[in-house]
């Protein structure tokens, strides 16, 4: 009984230390705010997702056409709009990149320098 209670107390103490560890490690941090994406970064993420989606679709279409799963007619119908989508996604990303200063976060760090 006593042995079990001692072990239980030990377990509770270890758990408390583990839970408190972030505060023990950094008692007075420079910043305690969460490192979240700002609006510009979220917009950029959406554009990157859209670009990757279009590129992947184009790649799959090319391969399916090569294997014969997609006929020449269907390929010709589909490839044009897909290429335009890729181009427009890249263009939108280019536009975002040109307005880069606005994508910096509140603390003035450029993207890529996040910890």
């Amino acid at each position, binding site marked *: 009984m006593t042995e*079990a209670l001692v072990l239980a107390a030990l377990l509770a103490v270890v*758990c408390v230390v583990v839970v408190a560890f972030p505060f023990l490690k950094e008692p007075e941090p420079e910043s305690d705010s969460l490192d979240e994406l700002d609006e510009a970064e979220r917009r950029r993420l959406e554009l990157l997702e859209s670009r990757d989606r279009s590129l992947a679709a184009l790649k799959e279409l090319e391969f399916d056409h090569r294997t014969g799963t997609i006929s020449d007619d269907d390929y010709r119908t589909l490839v044009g709009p897909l290429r335009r989508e890729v181009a427009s996604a890249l263009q939108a990303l280019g536009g975002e990149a040109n307005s880069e200063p606005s994508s910096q976060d509140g603390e003035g760090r450029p993207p890529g320098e996040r910890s």
Partner: protein
Amino acid sequence: MAELGRAALVVTLGLTTYALVAGAAAAHLGRRRLALSAQNALVAAFFSTLVASGVLLAALLRHDFSFTYVARTTSEALPTGYTVSAFWGGQEGSLLLWLLVLTGFGALAVRLNRGWARDLIVWVVPVFATVAVFFSFLVVAVASPFAVQPAPPDGAGMTPSLQNPYMLAHPPLLYLGYVGLTVPFAFALAALLSGRTDERWLIATRRWTLVAWTALGIGQLLGAHWAYVEVGWGGYYAWDPVENAALMPWLAATAFLHSVMIQEKRGMLRVWNVLLVILAFSLSLFGTFLTRSGVVNSIHSFTQSSIGPWFLAFIAFTVAVSLALLFRRLPQLRSPTRLESPVSREAAFLYNNLLLLALCLTILWGVVYPLISEAVRGEAVVLGRSYFDFFLRVFGLPLLLLMGIGPLIAWRKASLRSLVTTFRWPTTVALVTGAVLVVLGAGSSVPGLVTYTFAAFVVATIVMEFSRGTRARKALGAVSWPGAFHSLISRNRRRYGGYVVHAAIVLLAIGIAGSSAFDTVAEAKLRPGESMDVGRYTLAYRSLDERQVENATEIRATLAVSRGDRDLGTLEAGKNAYTIEQQVSNEVGIRSDRLTGEDLFVIAEQIDPDGAVYFRVFVKPLVNLIWIAGLVFVLGSAIALWPDAREQRRLVARAREVGVPATR
């Protein structure tokens, strides 16, 4: 040591409650250290639950009958393997296992994703913790595995049907599946709570969903094999409410795994995907409720307990909160693209989803109907096998056909001319197969014939996809044919792993159709020396023997089996009388033909004192394809789950471009 187990669970409850409150506060207020602290609490909860599990396992292995749970589920004579399986053989232990897997998955999911999706993880922690609080509360306050009593000299033993090697793997796999569905649910809700409805929640969870789905699928198949060899009624799936309870979330997860591709490829079905994740998780909770509440009569259910209302309340809470959050985020989840044509791959996936969901909801209706009829009319009306079989055919056969159609249609839209060209070969193969089968006499069952014809169509499309793809890879510069084949799969593991899973489903369909639509049954009461004919087999009853094993008395009738002039050896069928448990079980005799996949299945229904035995004998064509399908299913899932270095690089590059940490 029961005190240590109890204390460890109280610590788990404290930690999960802290993870919930601190996690929610951190996410709301944007506090970094508090968020990390909540994440640590979730990880620590896993270790404290592990301690509690260790205490219970030690008590089981030591046969410490002062633990009420140990005394109720085991005995001194129970073999060690089954003593270990008693951990999940009873209500309280299985809830503890659930909590252990839940906290383990939570800790792992947070650990693996906190680098690249940390703004999402901040919200995942309180969602996960909410579920963990519920289960830890149950094992602390409602159904504790650490209740103690004055130790009796021996335990009550284990239900005989659970004394089977399958019980070592079947329930834990189902738990991995059920609990695994918490991960996509937690990420989906985190996306709704945080408003981060980009693709990251899908990317973070699709492997988890695949793992949970695979575990649930294999768990069910093992359960079916257990029913086949152990329960001794001649079948493998009885549409039992608890069996259905595992099938429903699997169907919802199957729908999700297909529709998630439409979101990834076309950015469509965002609301639908969240709904499917909520449905799959809610159904996994509902399944647990059915097993534990005692509201349905099932071979799988635990005894009547007070746990039902708690589950019902939690399911209601989960569904209400999830739907409210979904409603709140509807504007953000609107799809930027629309379905361009009803003849396209995304449309085929959508039809697949609708059929899967229709089948899932039909089964749900079949499960809840007896409960509703009892509540309304005071009499439980059970929907029988014919109800479920009918809807399996209505929705299952088109689903089977769609497995062959979907992969061969172009995304966005396909022309009629293209369809004719693409489907020329698979259709020819299917029609020839159907015609040959009619000639061979398979026309006696129309659903069986249609299943085989559709199966041939799907197999033809799968073979075509692999052969064309390999040829294309070879043309693109692969040095050898095996190299081209390897390159084909490794460049798109999900697609080709998916085809292998489709092949498994085809085997499953052929096995089910063969064993149910074309089976033969015969019954006879035989005395030693007499014989009976079943299909092409002749069974001669030779002798009845009795022998004592570790925990039971085995009574076996020996039958000599022959087919035509060919002697096929002997087969034993009989009963086990369990001394401690005071129960008798059927022990069936099965002879499998490895070449044809056919089983000769013998049940000794009744054994008279004078040695006469009432036998029921089945011949089940192709039934072994069902179990082979399990192996192919695991292979396909493993291919799809295998880490994809190219995709990892793409995700890392994307993360870098945005400026978020790229570690996963």
